[in-house]
């Protein structure tokens, strides 16, 4: 019996060793490496993807070959007669789709790059800084290697003074009545707006009171846009305003509403009016919705840029009121009535991320009853047609080779769309790694002017070089506020730190570059010197070196005392390796929550 007991022990030991080794093997097996970039040897520019399931913008096609030549699609179809020496990629087991088109985004900083890294090759921006849009538009005409999604944009948005759309720190010319509509629209046309976006939002759906354009002005702007040959889309958040906007002749609505379920009769009226809807379910359901949470969980964290992480982690202040189900039901009913639906995310609003959220939107559209092909069409051909963008959203002869190869079969399950094998933009492979795309080598950083004085505020808000602006955590979904004014030759900053974020902030930022957040080289300078006074609370100077900080920027805190006091912060005291590279210097209040007031003056980098 002794030997039997001995054998039992040995058997158990071996069994345990076996289990440990087995799980150890499983735990050390390689996982997909995002940072590896595209798979080795994936062809670009002129090549073919053979024997692939292709979604051509309308339907899935089995066993297609797609022949790309000089960045455009030369042929697509079954069993093409391909040249012998054409580089080819075996597409079996994969699905090839047209580059995705996000029908509702707001673009700044790295969002266009992030969008492209997740297969969104074109974005339809529903308001951004007109200067930013103007700078981006030429790239969409070129067939060349690029690192950013192509931008089509409404540019500046039509809204009332203090209305929705004015709170983001980008310039907005507001309207006060219908008689201003024609001039306003013409100004947008001159700026290059691709269509007109109008805000019709009084906040009632969110239990807020927000100044809004009146119906007459909305109607006048729509009419003026049509007179100038531009489409007009309207931001609404209630069924009532949606019906009004339709009656005014709007071409599209860029949100679905969550206040009320649309009746079948009204849904039919939307269809008969030919109006399209961009439901933006990504911001209509909770960001903690299972589909969206799973998407983030299934995404390798190293694939996310700092801005994507920040915005995905963000939440609308106070959370979203209930209504996600109503939004879903509305999409279901509009679809049933045959209303054209365009996929759009409204990224990078809190809880969303540029690019990545498009894959969540597809999941939500599928949940709202859309078939897999239908959801993909809403994110490609239907979006392109709705906004009149020629040449995009389809895999067909002569189209731009904006293509996304996805692992597995999307015809069966569109929720796999995020599992991307390769992305081609204009036929060129896209490097999916964060920051690898045009991260701005040091050589491009402009040297600082010889002058050390940044601003003395004797002649107003202007800086000697660069520009001042307000900055708040609204950028990442917070609700803190900041107002800046020049009074008695000093910059007075007031506002309120609102709860809701882990690191709320609000204040002012000085950006030394010719473009916002363009880094400038201050080599040889030693310190930042300025005069301050205030309410006695603690503030921070944040030093932002690049447009894409990897985490919170390095900061040094200071107290703003009651009496004017000179402060000098040595650059080397900022916890960063490159304090001499400055894209922005922010003077901000942080925790604790509450009102704040401080002044700065005689700012110098010396």
């Amino acid at each position: 019996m002794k030997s039997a007991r001995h054998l039992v022990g040995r058997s158990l030991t071996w069994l345990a060793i076996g289990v440990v080794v087995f799980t150890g093997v499983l735990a050390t097996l390689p996982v997909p490496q995002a940072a590896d970039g595209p798979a080795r040897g994936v062809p670009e520019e002129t090549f073919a993807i053979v024997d692939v399931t292709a979604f051509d913008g309308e339907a899935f096609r089995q066993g297609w070959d797609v022949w790309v030549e000089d960045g455009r699609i030369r042929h697509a179809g079954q069993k093409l007669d391909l040249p012998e020496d054409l580089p080819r990629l075996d597409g079996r087991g994969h699905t090839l789709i047209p580059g995705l088109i996000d029908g509702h985004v707001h673009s700044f900083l790295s969002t266009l790059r992030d969008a492209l890294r997740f297969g969104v090759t074109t974005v339809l921006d529903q308001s951004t800084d007109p200067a930013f849009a103007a700078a981006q538009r030429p790239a969409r005409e070129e067939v060349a290697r690029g690192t950013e999604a192509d931008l089509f944009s409404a540019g500046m948005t039509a809204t009332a003074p203090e209305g929705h759309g004015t709170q983001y720190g980008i310039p907005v010319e507001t309207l006060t009545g219908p008689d201003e509509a024609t001039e306003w629209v013409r100004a947008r046309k001159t700026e290059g707006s691709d269509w007109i976006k109008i805000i019709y939002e009084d906040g009632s759906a969110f239990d807020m009171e927000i100044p809004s354009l009146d119906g007459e002005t909305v109607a006048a702007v729509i009419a003026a846009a049509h007179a100038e040959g531009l489409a007009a889309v309207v931001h609404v958040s209630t069924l009532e305003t949606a019906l009004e906007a339709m009656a005014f002749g709007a071409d599209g609505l860029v949100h679905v509403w969550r206040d009320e379920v649309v009746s079948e009769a009204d849904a039919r009226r939307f269809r008969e009016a030919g109006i399209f809807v961009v439901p933006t379910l990504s911001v209509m359901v909770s960001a903690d919705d299972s589909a969206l949470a799973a998407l983030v969980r299934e995404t390798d964290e190293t694939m996310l840029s700092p801005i994507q992480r920040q915005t995905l982690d963000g939440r609308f202040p106070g959370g979203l009121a209930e209504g996600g189900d109503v939004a879903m039901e509305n999409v279901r009913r509009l679809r049933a009535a045959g209303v054209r639906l365009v996929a759009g995310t409204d990224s990078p609003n809190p809880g969303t991320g540029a690019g990545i959220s498009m894959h969540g939107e597809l999941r939500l559209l599928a949940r709202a009853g859309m078939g897999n092909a239908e959801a993909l069409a809403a994110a490609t051909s239907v979006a392109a047609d709705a906004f009149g963008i020629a040449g995009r959203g389809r895999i067909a002869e002569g189209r731009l080779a904006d293509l996304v190869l996805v692992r597995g079969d999307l015809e069966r399950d569109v929720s796999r769309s995020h599992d991307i094998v390769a992305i081609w933009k204009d036929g060129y492979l896209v490097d999916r790694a964060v920051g690898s795309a045009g991260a701005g080598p040091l050589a491009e950083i402009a040297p600082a002017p010889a002058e050390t004085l940044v601003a003395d505020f004797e002649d107003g808000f202007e800086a000697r070089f660069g520009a001042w602006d307000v900055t708040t955590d609204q950028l990442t979904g917070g609700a803190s506020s900041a107002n800046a004014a020049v009074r008695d030759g000093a910059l007075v900053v007031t506002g309120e730190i609102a709860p809701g974020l882990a690191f709320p902030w609000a204040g002012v930022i000085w950006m030394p570059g010719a473009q916002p957040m363009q880094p400038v080289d201050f080599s040889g300078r030693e310190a930042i010197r300025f005069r301050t006074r205030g309410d006695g609370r603690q503030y921070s100077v944040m030093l932002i070196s690049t447009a894409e900080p990897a985490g919170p920027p390095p900061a040094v805190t200071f107290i703003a005392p009651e009496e004017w006091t000179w402060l000098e912060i040595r650059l080397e005291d900022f916890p960063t390796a490159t304090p001499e590279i400055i894209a922005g210097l922010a003077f901000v209040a942080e925790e604790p929550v509450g009102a704040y007031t401080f002044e700065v003056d005689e700012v110098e980098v010396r």
Partner: protein
Amino acid sequence: MTPGRRFRIYLLEARFQFVEVLREPMFAIPTLAFPLIFYLFFGVIMGTRGVSLAVPTYVLATYGVFGVLGPALFGFGAGLANERDTGVLLLKQTTPMPAGAYLFAKVMAALIFGAVVVAALFLMAAHAAGVALYRWQWFALAGVLLAGVIPFCALGLAIGAWARGRSAVAVVNLVFLPMAMLSGLWLPIYMFPDVMQDIALALPAYHHAQLALKVIAMDAGQPVPTHLAVLVAETLAFLAVAALGFRRADSFSMRRSR
């Protein structure tokens, strides 16, 4: 019998049977080596000619099924028939060892062999073919594959209960090889004509392979409950067939001994 004693008997029987098959190179080598050689050829050498890893990833799941299928069928089918013929089974039946321990030991042996094959396949796929799966996929795939020993052991039991000694190996091979091919374990099922794809619908290995492929999103799209329902129903059917076989064998041997 105390639970501790019962546990010890189960464990020791499992150990003895495992060591027994380990010492039987005619069993151990082919069941371990075949899936690996096949994977080396179809997955690594042929599969990585293109730049896409679709083929090595796909066949990893199917050769995994193949790798689990072999030990279960041979251990139960051929092993059981052999032990019955040589009288080892009768000898074991005369001992106080519960019949459950015998079956448990066989399942454990199949499970351990299956785990070895799966681990070796995974290592080869990862390091020779460059297959990369999400962590949860590696674990889920291993779990799904190993769970396959249950229906396959039941199938082996049914064969072992009916086939006689030496012919059992032939019968097992007659089931094993065609089923592996028709279930799409060697070459993806979608490469076959429709008629053959229809046959696959009746085979447990097909449904098990589809579940494994589901983990890596390469299955044919039928719902999970369908696969599970077929596997459960067929497992129960195999067990019933096995029970009938044993009853017949018992009455046969009783008649003979009279």
